């Protein structure tokens, strides 16, 4: 077949070949050497899988029809055959649709050859074993089943005889997939005599049948594929013939939908959707900013395993008033947008894990803050669309049952952008402002590319939730600006032409700001004024312009945010403003200028009152001070040219301060002829006298004995002790010296080991009786030979117990380790 595919390729005109390569671009990476190589690659499992992934449900079913209608002899089918099979059924698709599907399959080189002898490309059967959800032919499964299937009348009778519960199972398997698992023991026969104890049939309350699966297997309608008679859990398969028979009403391919399933929801008011979405964008931007401000105030340490800890996430989320999943999403998006980054801790030590890096806003954050709301949102939205992160995984557990942390590598998913575009693509292809339910979106995705959608339902649901959180959708519908952003990102990424989800071929919209402009029109214009009220609240009736926001940040406490913002002026906030360099007049001016309403008298009074007290205490640092009750003397000191280096400053008529330390000032003052006295913290004078330098104390020789040469006087007991010590040492030395050669081992001329050993035993037994000292040679635990002079105490149970007189310890020797024993002479 390979040759025929290669031949087919060879026969194709260049344009057709080019079109094929465009449809399946993975075939030319790397460029194949010749057409045979191309043919082999086109049949490879990976490449075929890619081609199949992009197909919609209908086209896949037509391909399945082609597989089912294959001639068992030569493996070919015909367009007519496919068409016949596809149009059998209650609601047949138009023949043109079938032909179009076949044409698509041909274009992807999944089918090739003339209409009457269509070939299937290899590798398809491996990828989906059950075409159209039908099982294998009975002949491949079980001979007796095959025999039943060969007799249509009997097969029909058997089917009709099936009890309702069994029929329900059959119907489920017939709808596909044709394989089901059965619990352990379901296929075993009931115990003999126990047939009557079976519960009545659950579905209709009819005669007891025991396990319906067993009934089906017994009647050859199902074939056990594994685990059959052993009683373990197993699987059963519905033979193709039975499946086809059961599908009489729906057609052999099951329900065929040539177009995507419709969405039941009526389109919403586009303005309402846009408005809700725009409101949400404001929220998302504001919350992101609040999160980053929190991070800036208290940077979060990076975990050893990457990402932020659960506690930090919780803290951030709580501070902003979000739930953790939303906070995780915004953090991920902000990171992807480059607004957050890691920084090495200054003076980081490698000894402690985790604290080496911190996550905090980047320089890009400053730029981001300065641009308009719509632009800020666009940056976030763009980052979200393209980031390969699945924020919904945060907080779940990974394969090793460890929680997945935000910003950690575990939340990385390469397929995330594609999933987002797939979901938003579905929304984008609907009428504007249509708000399908999540289930409908999943159904649509399942129709558009079943092979892609399957198993990703959770991810797709998350995309919908994230889109709502970020304001890409509003009231469940894609917003107008969201649509523009999506188109923009898609066209910017046009390389993804193999993306069968198509999205929108909006090639012309190269202008990056269409989405921003659309959103800008929806968002409230920034305001530059506020309303001041008697309860000292300041209400900015809209998003403040940056200058106003900066001013308010200093002079008032933030209370509530959203469409407008509410601030409260408190004594503390006024003090802060004064600290920041505002004067009371500046503040009055600010309130007068910005307020649309008369400034309440209470506020004016508050500002004046705080300003009056502001700076009532002055704080500074000084190295030392000079004080004197004699003001004239201090004036003299201050005027003294020689003291200029001390940089005296007059704090009060009686106090001077200098940045220098006390000692230096004392010296300088004394040099200049003054008579200063230092004082301590309590104000009492500290008297000082010059200190004489001294070396460390030594003992006088006078305490020694007069003649260093006279020997020490020794008492008798001490002398006796010395003698005994000497004797012991001598004995030890002698013993060491005199260990006999036999005992020491290593003598070349020693007798056979067996002989020595029995000799040794005899010697030892004698020594026990005589209480004599014996040299014992033995092999110690490390295999080294050693010897010891001991007095044997007893022998028994394979051990020698003996006393070492030198160490006064009782030793135990294993007899088999003793190599020699010699009486001490």
């Amino acid at each position, binding site marked *: 077949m390979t040759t025929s595919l290669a031949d087919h390729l060879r026969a194709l005109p260049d344009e057709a070949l080019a079109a094929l390569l465009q449809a399946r671009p993975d075939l030319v990476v790397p460029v194949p050497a010749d057409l045979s190589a191309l043919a082999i690659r086109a049949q490879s499992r990976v490449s075929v899988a890619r081609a199949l992934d992009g197909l919609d449900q209908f086209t896949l079913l037509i391909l399945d029809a082609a597989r089912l209608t294959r001639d068992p002899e030569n493996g070919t089918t015909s367009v007519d055959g496919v068409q016949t099979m596809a149009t059998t059924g209650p609601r047949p698709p138009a023949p043109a649709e079938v032909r179009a599907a076949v044409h698509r399959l041909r274009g992807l080189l999944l089918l090739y050859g003339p209409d009457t002898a269509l070939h299937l490309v290899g590798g398809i059967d491996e990828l989906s074993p059950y075409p159209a959800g039908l099982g294998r032919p009975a002949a491949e499964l079980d001979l007796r089943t095959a025999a039943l299937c060969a007799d249509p009348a009997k097969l029909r009778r058997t089917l009709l005889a099936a009890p309702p519960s069994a029929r329900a199972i059959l119907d489920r398997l017939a709808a596909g997939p044709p394989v089901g698992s059965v619990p352990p023991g379901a296929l075993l026969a009931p115990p003999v005599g126990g047939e009557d104890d079976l519960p009545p049939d659950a579905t209709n309350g009819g005669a007891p049948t025991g396990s319906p699966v067993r009934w089906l297997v017994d009647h050859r309608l199902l074939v056990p594929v594994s685990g059959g008679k052993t009683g373990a859990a197993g699987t059963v398969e519905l033979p193709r013939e039975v499946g086809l028979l059961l599908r009489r009403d729906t057609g052999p391919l099951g329900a065929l939908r040539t177009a995507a399933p419709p969405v039941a929801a009526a389109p919403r008011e586009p303005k*309402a959707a*846009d*408005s*809700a*979405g*725009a*409101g*949400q964008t*404001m*929220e998302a931007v*504001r*919350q992101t900013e609040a999160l980053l401000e929190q991070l800036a105030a208290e940077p979060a340490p990076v975990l050893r395993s990457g990402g932020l800890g659960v506690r930090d996430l919780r803290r951030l989320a709580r501070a902003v*008033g979000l739930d953790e999943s939303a906070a995780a999403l915004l953090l991920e998006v902000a990171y992807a947008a480059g607004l957050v980054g890691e920084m090495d801790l200054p003076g980081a030590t490698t000894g402690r894990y985790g604290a080496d890096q911190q996550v905090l806003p980047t320089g890009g954050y400053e730029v981001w803050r300065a641009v308009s709301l719509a632009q800020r949102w666009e940056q976030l939205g763009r980052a979200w669309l393209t980031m390969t992160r699945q924020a919904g995984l945060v907080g779940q557990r990974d394969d090793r049952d460890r929680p997945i942390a935000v910003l950690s590598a575990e939340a990385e998913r390469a397929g995330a952008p594609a999933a987002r575009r797939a979901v938003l693509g579905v929304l984008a292809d609907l009428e504007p402002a249509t708000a399908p339910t999540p289930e409908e979106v999943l159904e649509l995705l399942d129709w558009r590319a079943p092979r892609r959608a399957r198993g990703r339902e959770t991810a797709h649901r998350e995309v919908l939730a994230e889109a*709502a*959180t970020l*304001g890409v*959708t*509003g*009231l469940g519908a894609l917003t107008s600006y969201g649509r523009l952003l999506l188109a923009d990102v898609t066209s910017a990424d046009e390389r993804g032409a193999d993306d069968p989800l198509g999205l929108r071929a909006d090639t012309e919209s190269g202008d990056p700001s269409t989405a921003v402009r659309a959103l800008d029109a*929806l*968002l*409230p214009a920034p305001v530059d004024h506020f*309303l001041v*009220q*008697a*309860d*000292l*609240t300041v*209400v900015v*009736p*809209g998003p403040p312009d940056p200058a106003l926001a900066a001013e308010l940040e200093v002079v008032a406490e933030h209370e*509530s*945010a*959203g*469409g*407008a913002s*509410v601030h409260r002026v408190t004594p503390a906030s006024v003090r802060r403003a004064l600290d920041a360099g505002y004067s009371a007049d500046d503040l009055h001016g600010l309130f007068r200028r910005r307020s649309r*309403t008369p400034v*309440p*008298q*209470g506020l004016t*009074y508050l500002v004046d009152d705080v300003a009056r*007290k502001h700076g009532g205490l002055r704080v500074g640092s000084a190295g030392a001070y000079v004080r004197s009750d004699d003001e004239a003397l201090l004036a003299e000191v201050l005027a003294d040219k020689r003291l200029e280096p001390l940089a005296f400053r007059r704090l009060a008529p009686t106090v001077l301060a200098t940045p220098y330390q006390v000692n230096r000032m004392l010296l300088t003052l004394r040099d200049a002829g003054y008579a200063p006295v230092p004082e301590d913290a309590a104000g009492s004078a500290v008297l000082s006298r010059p200190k004489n330098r001294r070396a460390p104390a030594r003992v006088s020789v006078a305490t020694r004995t007069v003649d260093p040469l006279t020997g020490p006087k020794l008492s008798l007991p001490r002398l006796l002790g010395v003698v005994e010590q000497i004797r012991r040492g001598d004995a030890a030395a002698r013993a060491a010296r005199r260990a006999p050669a036999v005992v020491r081992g290593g003598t070349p001329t020693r007798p056979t080991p067996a002989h020595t050993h029995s000799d040794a035993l005899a010697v030892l037994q004698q020594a026990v009786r005589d209480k004599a000292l014996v040299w014992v040679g033995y092999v110690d635990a490390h295999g080294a030979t050693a010897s010891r002079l001991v007095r044997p105490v007893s022998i028994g149970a394979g051990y020698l117990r003996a006393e070492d007189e030198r160490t006064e310890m009782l030793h135990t020797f294993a007899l088999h380790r003793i190599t020699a024993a010699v009486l001490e002479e």
Partner: protein
Amino acid sequence: MSGGPLIVQSDKTLLLEIDHPDAQACRMAIAPFAELERSPEHVHTYRLTPLGLWNARAAGHDAEGVVDALLKYSRYPVPHALLVDVAETMDRYGRLQLANDPAHGLVLRALDRVVLIEVAKSKKLAGMLGTKLDDDTIQVHPSERGRLKQALLKLGWPAEDLAGYVDGEAHPIDLATDGKDGSKPWTLRSYQREAVEAFWAGGSGVVVLPCGAGKTLVGAAAMAEAKATTLILVTNTVAGRQWKRELIARTSLTEEEIGEYSGERKEIRPVTIATYQVLTSRRGGAFTHLDLFGARDWGLVVYDEVHLLPAPIFRFTADLQARRRLGLTATLVREDGREGDVFSLIGPKRYDAPWKDIESQGWIAPAQCTEVRVTLTDAERMSYATAEAEERYRMAATARTKMPVVRALVERHPQEQVLVIGGFLDQLHQLGEYLDAPIIQGSTTNKERERLFDAFRSGAIRTLVISKVGNFSIDLPEAAVAIQVSGTFGSRQEEAQRLGRVLRPKADGRQAHFYTVVSRDTIDTEYAAHRQRFLAEQGYAYTIVDADDVLGPSLPSLD
């Protein structure tokens, strides 16, 4: 952008710009589900709370309507998440119902079985639920009705109470709008009628109206609606007598039908007025007078000054869930933070009106609030600076420097009846001597009080010094000036109640004056700021003046 008057904030507060032409319509639209939190002069703040949304559900509003109102009046796009949250919160209401089962009495019934299973497993409900009747129904002991509702509210699954109210013992009560004993005919004011209607439609609840706005009449109208025996709980005997006078004057009730249950008298009549004090007095550790609640088959229980409701009454109120309950207050600000208990046990806030609205309708006197700051003498400052922390407030509040200021203020209004209100008895006695005015304090007998009040009303006494006892429920119609010299630390509701003393509308529509004398640069100023917060939020802008401006150029010498 619709350019509406409403701005929806992400913390679920709603800012209503009241100078906007649509503001009034918007207020009507959002009032059913949003709680008025602050009403200063330009922007009123409402808040969306789960409780408020559930009350709206109970009153028949659905989430769709709430969302529509928000979208219709909102100036800016409303965040999608907030709309979803509103819908979800409202959807939680009524999944459980409290209903009367003909066979089993009070039952908790589930429209959503999972919710019932969830709450039945909760430890907080342990002991409140009886036997399970079927998958969707659990029996409830009638005495647990209040506690169960409260607990379910805390669990976030508020039950719809379909069990209704007992009618109580019927007793004819009518409003004597045609005038009684020769007095002039009168009608309920519009807001009073709205309040009664809102209360009656909801069954039970709290009506919040400013001091002097005629809360007693709301109570009387509610009684006329119930036409049943009524128990009225008031703060003290004087207030009780006043209720009695008012009821006799404004309703068909006669003196014989109204009983007083207080420390002095123990009468139980179709309409009984009891004081909180007597109900919570204990003998041998037991509340001896709580039987009053069961003494008759009350059809209505009225709680006056509900913000002062003592804790033991809370407990017994939980048992009274089958009876209609009406709470009345001017300031539902409890310094103990138990506003939530008031709402869940007596009922949600059924009616609330911004003070300034009622002032603009002319039902309460316009008041000018002034804070007078006195500068302590150096000696006073020095002793204040070195005082112990717990002594500081007393020292600052009772500074003798305040006295000439008070006298100057009294002299400023020579034609007016003046109340001087303070918290420290020593200071009040000094002031009484200094101003030559009688003092009313806790130890003053009821008889003496009434005598002094009568004299004050008649104008025989122009200045009256009162302690904390006068904070509540005394009717001094012609007091037009109040001077506050000290208070209970930073109590917001005390300040509001004291302002209320001068808010009753004056015969000639004169302006009322409220002065609070504060020592500058002391803790007194901080407390004053906190005290003023409630009123500032109601739109009463305090003007701050220096004592020197009051006193004029020359300082009078002391002693």
